[in-house]
């Protein structure tokens, strides 16, 4: 039996189809989850996809956090359910207090979509085991509110505990300490601003490549789930 990976659709989610496709590409079973359902349909892991849930009008992720499905996900995450929040999903995770800090308006005020060079700094999370520590990768970013911020104490703690998962090599938006993604203390919950689901196929990934640097996020979780 293969691993079941759920992808939540909130009203206003955009990259849910892409996330489902990425899950399928690595051989896991993609399961669509709906924000109103508390039932997680026995998934082994969850992806909160990118997009503009509820238009992101109030604050990115602020309203989605209160969805019924999030109640179950928050409870599950506290007990070890692997959760990956991508972009809007990362914002939802911060709003839900599964991850510390917050994401605010980019330094240049504008929405930025570009292929971004990153460094993987932690390979001990559920979602990054297939990378090597310090590996440089190319993954698209696309957001208007992607600037990570947290108080100094939190930032120091994240660094000390090795919970900074990916960093920008050339910081596009003023994120504190070049942070592009972080994990919770247990390493099962990861939030990322870059979109690994947009870097999984030669045909549609970054050009000029490498085009498929996002795949290991999905292979990492698959291996962990199949091994478990």
């Amino acid at each position, binding site marked *: 039996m293969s691993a079941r990976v759920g992808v939540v659709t909130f009203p206003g989610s955009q990259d849910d189809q892409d996330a489902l496709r990425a899950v399928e590409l690595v051989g896991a079973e993609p399961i669509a989850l709906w924000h109103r359902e508390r039932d997680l349909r026995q998934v082994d892991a969850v992806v909160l996809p990118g997009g503009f849930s*509820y*238009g992101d*009008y*109030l604050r990115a992720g602020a*309203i989605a956090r*209160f969805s019924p499905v999030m109640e179950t996900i928050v409870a599950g995450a506290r007990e070890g359910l692997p959760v990956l929040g991508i972009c809007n999903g990362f914002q939802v995770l911060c709003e839900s207090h599964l991850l510390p800090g917050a994401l605010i308006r980019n330094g240049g005020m504008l929405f930025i979509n570009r292929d971004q060079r990153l460094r993987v700094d932690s390979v001990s999370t559920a979602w990054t085991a297939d990378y090597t520590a310090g590996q440089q990768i190319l993954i698209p970013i696309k957001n208007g509110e992607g600037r990570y911020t947290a108080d100094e104490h939190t930032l120091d703690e994240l660094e000390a505990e090795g919970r900074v998962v990916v960093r920008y090599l050339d910081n596009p938006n003023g994120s504190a300490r070049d942070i592009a993604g972080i994990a919770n203390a247990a390493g099962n919950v990861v939030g990322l601003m870059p979109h690994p689901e947009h870097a999984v196929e030669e045909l549609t990934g970054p050009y000029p490549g490498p085009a498929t640097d996002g795949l290991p996020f999905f292979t990492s979780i698959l291996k962990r789930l199949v091994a478990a």
Partner: protein
Amino acid sequence: MARVVVDVMLKPEILDPQGQAVQRALPRLGFDGIVDVRQGKRFEIELDGPADEAALARAREIADKLLANTVIEQYAVRFDPAEADRVTEPAAG
């Protein structure tokens, strides 16, 4: 030093998708009886010089030129509010 507050809101006849999104979310969070929500912007500006009419006039010009899009928004300019009005409430846990 003059401390001025500029409030910018969409004109009443203009659709406010942001306020509506909040309003629609509230019943789901258990808040009923919310008749209307409008969302706008608040700017706190510190200008050098005394807190006089000239400072207000400058702030008004800034609001008109930059802070508000007067095609769809209206604004109000006033001096730093009384203590009670300050946004200093400690964040509740």
